[in-house]
């Protein structure tokens, strides 16, 4: 593979990861506050459909993104209100919403199937786009991709370097303690669900208006929500590590195309499906860092010790368990 092809491939990885990053970082914010929004897979599809429809009827791509974000926020708000205020199971509500949103998207989107519509136009960054290598990989995309790249440091900054982020993490760890300090954990969880839901909705519009423009059945975003949910765990609820996972997943998908050309004897389905079991394998490797045997082995090697500790993560302690006062 020569240098030309490599930059093209990496550019495709960066572009393809954009929607997954929106969804996974959004879910990271939600779960950091202790709430599980399991409806991702359906929300993304419904957001994709609503975003495409709104953009088609108004002629404005921005209106499409706004509509998609609103849809994601509303679905997430349903999970938060039923789960936190009404004491229902977040898992059950989220799962039912996944199925409902998916069917709703296909049903309402039926008239839009295969209709040509607007899409986000490319916007190379003046000056930077002409840099050798880096220019093509990072700076010849559209606003959606730039936003996905910027989202990661912004989310990290908000979660780890601000008063708000401290409240979010504190609520996810111990809602009763946050309550004792005068912070209403339910309000924080609702807010985080809505913010996370906005991003999940944007992920949907990123598909239907940028990555795979248009609407149809299948749309092409199916299964992405589950991957995003897995990435949150893989990334240890940390936006930067979650983003690394998203790029890794995108890479696994993109390399399938050149590999297929190199290995014509292997059925094409193998390359389409390969990213999923590879994700499970990676999750298992991450999990290994928690085992005693690995700890013992790494104990005598400074570099391994640091690696194991960087990879190791634990869930927000109150994940899925809202405030109860005995």
């Amino acid at each position, binding site marked *: 593979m020569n240098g030309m092809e490599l930059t093209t491939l990496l550019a495709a990885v960066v572009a393809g990861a954009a929607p997954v990053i929106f969804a996974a970082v959004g879910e990271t914010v939600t779960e950091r506050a202790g709430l599980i929004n399991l409806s991702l897979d359906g929300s993304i599809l419904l957001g994709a459909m609503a975003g495409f429809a709104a953009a088609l009827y108004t002629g404005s791509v921005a209106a499409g993104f706004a509509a998609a974000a609103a849809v994601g926020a509303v679905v997430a708000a349903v999970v938060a209100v039923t789960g936190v205020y009404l004491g229902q199971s977040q898992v059950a509500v989220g799962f039912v919403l996944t199925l409902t949103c998916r069917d709703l998207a296909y049903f309402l989107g039926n008239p839009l199937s295969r209709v040509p519509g607007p899409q986000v136009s490319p916007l190379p960054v003046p000056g930077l786009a002409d840099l050798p290598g880096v220019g093509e990989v990072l700076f010849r995309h559209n606003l959606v991709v730039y936003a996905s790249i910027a989202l990661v440091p912004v989310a990290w900054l908000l979660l780890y370097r601000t008063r708000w982020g*401290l*409240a979010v*993490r504190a609520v996810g*760890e111990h809602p*009763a303690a*946050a309550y*004792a300090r005068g*912070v*209403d954990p339910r309000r924080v969880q609702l807010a985080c669900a809505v913010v996370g839901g906005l991003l999940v909705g944007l992920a949907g519009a990123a598909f239907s208006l940028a990555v795979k423009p248009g609407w149809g059945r299948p749309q092409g975003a199916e299964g992405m929500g589950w991957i995003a949910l897995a990435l949150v765990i893989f990334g240890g609820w940390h936006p930067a590590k979650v983003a690394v996972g998203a790029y890794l997943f995108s890479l696994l998908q993109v390399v399938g195309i050149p590999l297929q050309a190199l290995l014509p004897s292997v059925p094409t389905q193998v390359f389409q499906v390969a990213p999923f079991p590879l994700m499970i394998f990676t999750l298992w490797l991450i999990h290994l860092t928690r085992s005693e045997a690995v700890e013992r082995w790494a104990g005598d090697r400074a570099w391994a010790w640091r690696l194991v500790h960087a990879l190791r993560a634990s869930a927000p302690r109150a994940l899925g368990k809202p405030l109860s006062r*005995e």
Partner: protein
Amino acid sequence: MHIQLVDIHKRFGAVHANRGISLSVGAGTIHGVLGENGAGKSTLMKIVAGFLPKTSGEIRLDGEAVSYRGPADATRRGIGMLYQDPLDFPALTVLENFRFGLETAGRDPRALLADLAGRFGFDLPPDRVVERLTVGERQQLEILRLVARNVRTLILDEPTTGISATQKDVLFAALRRLADEGRSVILVSHKLEDVQVLCDRVTVLREGRVAGEAERPLRTNDLLGLMFGTVPHPPPRCENPAGTPVLRLDGVSAPGGRAGLRDCTVAIRRGEVVGLAGVEGSGQGVFLRVAAGMVRPRRGRVLFEDAPLGRRAAAGRVAFLPTDRLGEGLVPGLTVREHFVLRLPRVPFLLDRATAGPDARAGIDRLSIRGTPGTPVEALSGGNQQRLLLALLPERPAVLLLENPTRGLDLESAHGVWRELQRYCDAGTALVFSSPELDEILLAADRILVFHNGRMVLDTPASRTTPDELARAIAGLGTGAAA
């Protein structure tokens, strides 16, 4: 601040936890609230701190009747509480815990924390994750945080549970300092000695009511009489000559806890009662788990009756009761009878009420557990859970390992547990127990091992040591060569 509680009632469904409690706490005093488990102390204090709403009654602060919407309202009025289960954030750092919810009025929280810690003589590294602190250090952090929020009344719910004697001295000095500054302190405890050392005035609660009040000098028998109606007798000591070695640790190192266990060599003899002393997490927990065969040593050997201890080798002969009764010992959600079913050597496919029912009933009678075979274990009180664990033990274990067996139990329940344990000892079982209370260790053990930072630093017969020597060893100050 002068706090008055007038006829406070609190109901949780059918349970009437506070039944018309009135009491008054003067400004600048240290007021004790004493009572056995379940007397309603914690509930009452959570009401004063705004964490729980009261069913009826009135709270007056400096003569003014107040009502709160939540703990934040109480804090704003100057009342802060140190909860029994610490309400902090173990995964966050000391500084993050300190600053969350704090209005610092433009002051740098890091400087403020360093300033306050210096004033009280606490050593709290601001960037350390709180789960790596000891229970005592977590309390110190909470106290600093509440002082930074300018509380004028500080409530502490069972603050001496799980901290070392040294940390207790530091805590009490800090509380006296707060009282000298004109703040009020309310100390909730079931431990007489804490209240006697520290408090000016004591209110004793029994079964949700005020049983009486007492002022300095606080006499032990008066307080016990108020708490229990009668004064309980201390349990008899087991007087057994120690027999042949039954369990041997040979140069054992193992991971776990804060410090792990390092290079431990010791032999436990038949019929011996061995007390493990030390600051929580200094190696006692790992020692017990290694001896029970639950943690495999990284180095060294564990021998039971001269054979290597395997997972099954000593089945039924070495028994271990962990301190977290509901977390590690029992299965929450299952009934007493179902626990006896799990113990059967062969569990039949179909379970009916007769399966292990007689066993359960016999166990309940033998240990006078307050409950029925159908009671879910989480509905039992702490003392009854501990008695159930004892009832579930194999008939005649050779070694019985107990991690803080009287944790959270009041005097009467604790004595009951010890009376039962003495029966095992009389039958030749070796008892090895850890406890944060030196008094308990001196009262029950005939041999004492002291742990500091993962190492066993002292091994002495109880009759040939002093509380002073033990305290020095616990603090790691060493006894000659062991330093």
